[in-house]
């Protein structure tokens, strides 16, 4: 038994018991069957009220926007959320008020773009129970879960108020006597990750940085994949080195071209800074924001219709040029 030196006072929203997780994964199917379905069907089947939800990517980079919209559109409620590397995804989910518990590593902000007025109002409203962590701390929790163990040690967070309001513990290392912070494993009920390519079974390829998605995919009990494009299984098998997420982790595969919009998709299209600015501006007035949400999310049928409202392929082409540093006017 480790000697516990200090304990955070924050709530632990999920059970870190590794054997219970093993029982779940023991029963999870390994059948190689097509999991292709619509985003609406995937969210309907795999996101349940009260679930613990995590979103892949990095805030406004390679995010499954269509799934975030659909969770709001289907008016899911009482979710717990992993506020980890979240920015625009958090903004969308906070707009729908779909969660009432939040593990916080980074929320409300959109990095250099500023803070979301609506997400801030929601977090200051008292409607959300929260627990503090750090980006690496949350990654450690997913890493522990992915490894099938109940905790992961690290050397951050000790001595701070972030630790005091977390649910981590500081212990003495049984080998050296040094203090280490232990992060409890986190097995989200359901997660969504946007990828570049997937086959119908859910074997996935991601280009560019993986952020914490390799850990998240393995930690999640249910996993929804949105993909820029479907590719044949033969292509996966011709280059297995490129597979970063194997099919047996995946429950749903949804083909959503431009699915990270208005976020950046590496090597495909850059973030739509004008549209993200529109969100931040409109949120200043709650009444105006309500109408904005009606127009862009609640009254849209699906993600394609949202893309059309935002300028469609013409806008995407502009964002492709920005991503590839192409000066379309040729003026240098």
């Amino acid at each position, binding site marked *: 038994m480790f000697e516990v030196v200090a304990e955070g006072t924050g709530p632990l929203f999920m059970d870190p018991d590794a054997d219970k997780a093993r029982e779940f994964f023991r029963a999870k199917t390994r059948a190689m069957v097509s999991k292709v379905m619509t985003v609406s069907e995937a969210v309907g089947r795999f996101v349940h009220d009260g679930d613990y939800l995590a979103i892949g990517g990095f*805030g406004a980079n390679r995010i499954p926007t269509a799934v975030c919209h659909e969770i709001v559109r289907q008016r899911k409620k009482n979710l717990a959320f992993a506020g980890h590397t979240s920015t625009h995804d958090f903004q969308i989910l906070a707009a729908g008020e779909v969660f009432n518990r939040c593990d916080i590593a980074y929320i409300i*902000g959109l990095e*250099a773009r500023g803070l979301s007025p609506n997400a801030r109002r929601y977090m200051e409203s008292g409607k959300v129970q929260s627990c503090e962590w*750090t980006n690496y701390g949350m990654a450690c929790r997913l890493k522990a879960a992915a490894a099938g163990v109940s905790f992961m040690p690290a050397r*951050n967070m000790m001595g701070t108020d972030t630790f005091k309001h977390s649910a981590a513990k*500081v212990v003495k290392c049984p080998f050296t006597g040094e203090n280490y912070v232990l992060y409890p494993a986190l097995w989200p009920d359901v997660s969504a990750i946007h990828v570049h390519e997937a086959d119908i079974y859910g074997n996935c390829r991601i280009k560019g*940085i993986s952020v914490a998605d390799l850990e998240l995919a393995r930690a999640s009990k249910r996993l929804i994949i949105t993909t820029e494009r479907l590719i044949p299984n033969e292509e996966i098998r011709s280059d297995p080195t490129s597979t970063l997420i194997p099919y047996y982790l995946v429950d749903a595969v949804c083909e959503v071209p431009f699915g990270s919009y208005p976020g*950046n998709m590496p090597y495909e299209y850059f973030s739509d800074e004008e549209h993200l600015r529109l969100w931040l501006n409109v949120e200043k007035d709650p009444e105006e924001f309500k109408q904005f949400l009606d127009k862009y999310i609640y009254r849209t049928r699906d993600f394609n219709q949202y893309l059309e409202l935002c300028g469609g392929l013409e806008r995407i082409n502009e964002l492709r040029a920005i991503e590839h540093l192409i000066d379309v006017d040729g003026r240098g």
Partner: protein
Amino acid sequence: MTEYNTMELMICAAARNLEDGAAVAVGTGAPCAAAMLAQKAYAPNLVIIFEAGGIAPLLPTMPISVGDSRTYYKAVMASGMCEVMETISRGMVDYCFLGGAQIDMYGNINSTVIGDWEKPKVRFPGSGGANDFGSMAWKIMVITPQDARRFVERVSFITTPGYLDGPGAREAAGLPADTGPHKVITNMAVMGYDPESKRMRVESIHKGYTFDEVQENTGFELLKAPEVVETPEPTEEELHLLRDEVDPNRYIIGR
């Protein structure tokens, strides 16, 4: 002497602290500009890393996000968050740059809440990767405006550890030894930390400002380094690189 603005001076002052061959974890904005300038001006082998996974990119433009595709443009590796954080934990990252709503005399940083945590007056984003950087990188750098509301006696919430309560406190808490706050660069001065008391001290003052003015804009008593000098002005070469290569669109230096 070419005219320059305060942001240009701050970026140059920060860049000069980054020696060739060091590794630095940066965010977007002024820290990124400082690292890019250092790389072009005097530290060609500076390793720039981003928390979401970008390692040693040849940045084509200023990134908007620490995870956007610019952060691994022509990089040596597009990795992930654990790769980066564990490189810092292993002791291979010399500098990190941090920001925040408040900083105190021991260099502790608050980016979580103003007021009571339970019922915050203002809620901010939280740690993000700041606590990870500030706990495990060797030296913490901060670029921020000199303002008595930012430089407070005690931060209302320690998001990221500075020297905590003073000498020995980081080590007692369990943080890696010999790590901690290094420099604070503002629009008025460059500050470091007294090696004995671990309290913030003024080391150089920018042209046109006095120690008293710096003190008036600080919410706690500042110490003085044994010799307080005038901050060297940006050179022609630095200004050329900054304006023509690092930030030609003036995203940062135009602020």
